[in-house]
């Protein structure tokens, strides 16, 4: 007969042999769009804070420097070297930065419209595409894969022209509609890949456990897998949304008066090219950084159940 203590040791040795490796948390990081400022990345976190404070400060300074003594600051070297500040004082300063903002409101509105209409459509298309891409039914999988391959192989700018001009021969689409259609069609494919990899990152065991309890494959997907995949999917999808906001500037080539196009119009009239594009750059920088912080906040809230 075997001694109990020895038997126990052998059992344990055997058990260790087949124990699965400890699970690692999965995060998907995709490099277009600004990086998400996570507290775990101190360098990026402070960079975010720095730029986030600097950007609005620069905008406020540029639009108001002629009113709150900024004029003096700007001409400080001349005061010292030339001393003829009276001559400068006499010049009427026309602040092109501020003028740009007065010129712009409709541009902001259009950019927000394009972005806000495109995001839900793109996310919806992305979830459908992602689910079809993991389908074991060949035709469904093939259709989704062709969609992804085609869209990813064609630049968004070309897709925009194509939808606007080529399809314009067959059906008439209003400019805003075609812009939203093209952008969400394009980003739906990108997001589809994110959704697919997010679902695939969920341990197979979750699905098996659900099936063994009598869930249908559909129930397993919607009650067990997708709610968990959201946590992994959310940061890259948020990133895609920010990239979408940035790429919405491309619609300025169509007859759509977004921020970018209005800036060009402003510059054409006033010849203040530098001022106009400086403001555009600052506005987009501010918006994208704000959104990236929002994504990071949401991300922190989603994963609460994994905290020990």
């Amino acid at each position, binding site marked *: 007969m075997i001694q109990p203590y020895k038997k126990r040791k052998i059992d344990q040795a055997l058990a260790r042999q087949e124990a699965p490796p400890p699970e690692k948390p999965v995060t998907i990081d995709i490099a277009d769009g600004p990086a998400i400022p996570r507290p775990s990345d101190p360098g990026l976190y402070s960079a975010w804070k720095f730029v986030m404070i600097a950007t609005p400060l620069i905008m406020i300074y540029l639009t108001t420097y002629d009113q709150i003594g900024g004029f003096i600051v700007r001409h400080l070297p001349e005061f010292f070297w030339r001393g003829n500040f009276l001559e400068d004082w006499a010049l009427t300063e026309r602040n092109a930065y501020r003028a740009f903002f007065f010129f712009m409101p409709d541009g902001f509105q259009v950019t927000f419209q394009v972005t806000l209409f495109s995001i839900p459509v793109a996310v919806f298309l992305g979830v459908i595409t992602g689910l079809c891409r993991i389908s074991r039914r060949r035709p469904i999988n093939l259709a989704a894969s062709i969609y992804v391959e085609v869209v990813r192989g064609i630049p968004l700018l070309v897709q925009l022209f194509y939808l606007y001009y080529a399809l314009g021969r067959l059906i008439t689409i209003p400019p805003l509609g075609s812009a939203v259609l093209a952008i969400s069609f394009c980003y739906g494919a990108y997001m589809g890949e994110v959704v697919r990899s997010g679902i695939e990152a969920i341990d197979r065991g979750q699905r098996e456990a659900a099936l063994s309890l009598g869930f249908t494959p559909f129930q397993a997907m919607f009650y067990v897998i997708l709610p968990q995949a959201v946590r992994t999917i959310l940061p890259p999808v948020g990133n895609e949304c920010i990239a979408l906001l940035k790429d919405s500037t491309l619609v300025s080539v169509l007859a759509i008066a977004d921020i970018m196009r209005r800036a060009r119009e402003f510059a054409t009239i006033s010849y203040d090219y530098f001022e106009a594009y400086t403001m555009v750059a600052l506005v987009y920088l501010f918006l994208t950084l704000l959104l990236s912080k929002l994504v990071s906040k949401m991300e922190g809230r989603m994963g609460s159940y*994994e*905290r020990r």
Partner: protein
Amino acid sequence: MGGQPVIVMEGVYKYFGDFAALTNISLNIEKGQKLVLVGPSGSGKSTLLRAINRLETIDHGRILVDGQDIYDPGINLNQLRTRMGMVFQGFNLFRHKTALENVTMAPRKVLKMSAKEADRRGLDLLHKVGIADKAANYPAQLSGGQQQRVAIARALVMNPDIMLFDEPTSALDPEVTHEVLDVMVALAREGMTMAVVTHEMGFARQVADRVIFMDQGQIIEEAPPALFFENPRSDRTRTFLRQILPF
């Protein structure tokens, strides 16, 4: 014993590519019986267990559960699976749900039971596996032994006819293994039909009605535990037992 068979396997073959995971497996599990499957890694024990509730599809042969062929096209597979509780090596608790929600989810979504009734049953079962005080905790906040006990409660909630255990203690720290084994022994005493893949020979000795030794996808030997451990018939079994019980 000698009741009606809950599980019948007849000439089951399963291939992964060229690799034969199961070769000509035939066995019956009768109501109330405790079957323990042992064998070296990769011998097909887990595959056999997973084939019973069709988590693995088989290539030849028949598997009957309560007399119904699980490959019958007219069968409701999801409904059939509710009659078999499965406990996995890696626990596989739903990580976004609390312990109680893990247990109540299947009755609520599959049986459309009311939240109140499901909660009552869930708490009863958590109490039974000795973990009712952790009902509101998420799996990430539970130890391996606690998670596996929740997983057992979750499998029991559908009132299965048979419980399938796929190496339930292999992923656990040795010092908490007994938590789970105690629950399984209690379950066996209540008369639950069980099929257990395990390396815990002590458990096999104590609980099993029959021990099956598998190697390279084949059933090499099938015997009551006393006979199996004291006087194995085949050389292969003897070698295996000598390796894990060396003297």
